[in-house]
């Protein structure tokens, strides 16, 4: 996890959980996506409608009550979109889902209709000012809250993605370096293992020269700690895989 501000809360089972708070970038991105979705929804609706009829004429032909309802629905669509999604979908709108963020109560619990109503109603104050107060508040406040969040008692947290497949290490790598069996625990702390797993996962994206250099240096340092001879330059990555697999085997 990165070092940004976090929301810390405790479940009734006395488990402390820390979630990273979302910043301006992710939230603005989510807002733009939602605006796009609402826009596309309207365009689609109008297109579909225009197949069957002449919208302008039909709206004019509506009873006055119908026209008022139509106007109100346009007016409230943006607000209702946010409120409905957040209240019914665990604090996420489609835009927030794509930006990997969600709204939660400041005690970590799920937002309800009340919170969704309040935090989105206060957009009415920020929107006419081009969202400037919201952007400043999110950027500057310690808990990354805009006015609506402050009043509703909500926070926006990042939904980090963690992949457990990094812990699936083929034991076959160990066949070429059987001497590592039983020595990995001495060479690698739990945190050291995570960093090694980071390297193994990210290496396809590295520039080839840098990848080889890092592999050789890592292998040499870890071999010294495990009290085994360092591998040949071409075998550094195989050695690292074997070391990780040996560590993963446990005792």
């Amino acid at each position, binding site marked *: *996890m990165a070092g940004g501000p976090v929301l810390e809360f405790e*479940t*009734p*089972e006395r*488990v*402390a*959980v*820390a*979630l990273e708070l979302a910043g301006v970038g992710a939230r603005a991105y989510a807002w733009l996506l939602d605006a796009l979705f609402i826009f596309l929804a309207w365009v689609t609706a109008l297109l579909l409608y225009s197949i069957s009829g002449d919208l302008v004429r039909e709206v004019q032909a509506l*009873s*006055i*009550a119908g*026209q*008022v*309802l139509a106007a*109100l629905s346009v*007016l*409230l669509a943006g607000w209702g979109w946010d409120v409905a999604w957040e209240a019914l979908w*665990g*604090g996420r709108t489609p835009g927030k889902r794509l930006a990997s963020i969600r709204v*939660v109560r400041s005690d*970590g*619990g*799920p937002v*309800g*209709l*009340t*919170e969704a*109503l*309040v935090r989105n*109603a*206060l957009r*009415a*104050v920020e929107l006419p000012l081009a969202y400037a107060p919201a952007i400043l508040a999110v950027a500057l406040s310690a808990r990354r809250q805009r*006015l609506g969040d*402050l*009043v*509703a*008692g909500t926070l926006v947290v990042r*939904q*980090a993605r*963690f*992949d*457990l497949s*990094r*812990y*699936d*290490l083929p034991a076959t790598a160990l066949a070429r370096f059987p001497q590592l069996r039983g020595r*990995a*625990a001495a060479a690698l702390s*739990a*945190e050291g*293992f*995570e960093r090694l*797993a980071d390297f193994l996962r990210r290496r396809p994206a590295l520039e080839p020269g840098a990848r080889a250099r890092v592999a050789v240096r890592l292998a040499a340092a870890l071999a010294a700690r495990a009290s085994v001879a360092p591998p040949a330059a071409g075998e550094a990555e195989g050695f690292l895989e074997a070391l990780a697999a040996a*560590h*993963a*085997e*446990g*005792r």
Partner: protein
Amino acid sequence: MSGPAAGRSVAAFVRARRPAWERLGALTARAGGSRLPLAEVEELDRLYRRAAADLAHARRRFPGSDAEGYLAELIASAYRVLYRPRPRGAALLHLLRASIPAACRRHPGALGLATALLVTGAAGGALAVALDPGAAELLVPLPVREAVAEHRMWTGHLLSAAPGVSGAALLHNNVTVAVLSFGLGLTAGLGTALLLVLNGALLGAVLAHAAIHGMGGAVLAFVAGHGPLELSALLIAAQAGFVLAAALVDPGEWPRRTALQVAGRESAMLLAVVVPALVLAALLEAGVSPSGTFSPQARAVLGLGLAATLWAWLLGPRPSGG
């Protein structure tokens, strides 16, 4: 802790426990969308407690690992499902019968202030136009003046976010005025007060101007259907704004942030009244007020009756219990 996972490497720990975590994740995702059978609820509960213990273990033994981060996310999302407020009909009924009226009656000062400001504004506007008919050029929107001069009825709204600006201006609608008078509570109530006085002045000036030109009866008859509800909604929205303002200005023994959150919940109850009231008022304005089928008397009875029902619900005697 000397559980079965103690002393193992993080990868061995993940290997041993991963099927249970993934099952918990799947159950959580399904419970978020629909109801689970009892057996699966019990399984979810059991897996959640196990995973919580795993998170505590991972935090102590493997701090900063992806396994810890994964478990924190898993626990957080299961927690959100397990402790989700229940959306039941009973909860809604309780909200309607008790919570919303209680929220309104907890803040009589805010409601009184809103009413006083609106009435003062209306009196001021009416008095200004009555004393000096020239004031109408300043206070009464041009389309209204033109309509009155031609002795025809106009179909504009009673409220305006920017009095003096022509009725065609962008901000001219009831929902915006109501939401603004709530949101401007964050200006320590000054914005809300200004909006109330200005809207009162506009209203008073329009009525006085119409009365002077012999259209007072027609205007009153037109607004009788929807006006009472519109004004009630504005007053409640302003009350919510003042509740926010009070928490900002005088948070009492709480930190300002906490006071503001409590006030936010109170005002949400009030907003839940404002929006439906405005929708109803808009329907009345469009469907009942201009039509010739309803007599002015019927419209007045309908409008005043609806507003009286609203206030009786909010402020009237409580039903037993609660």
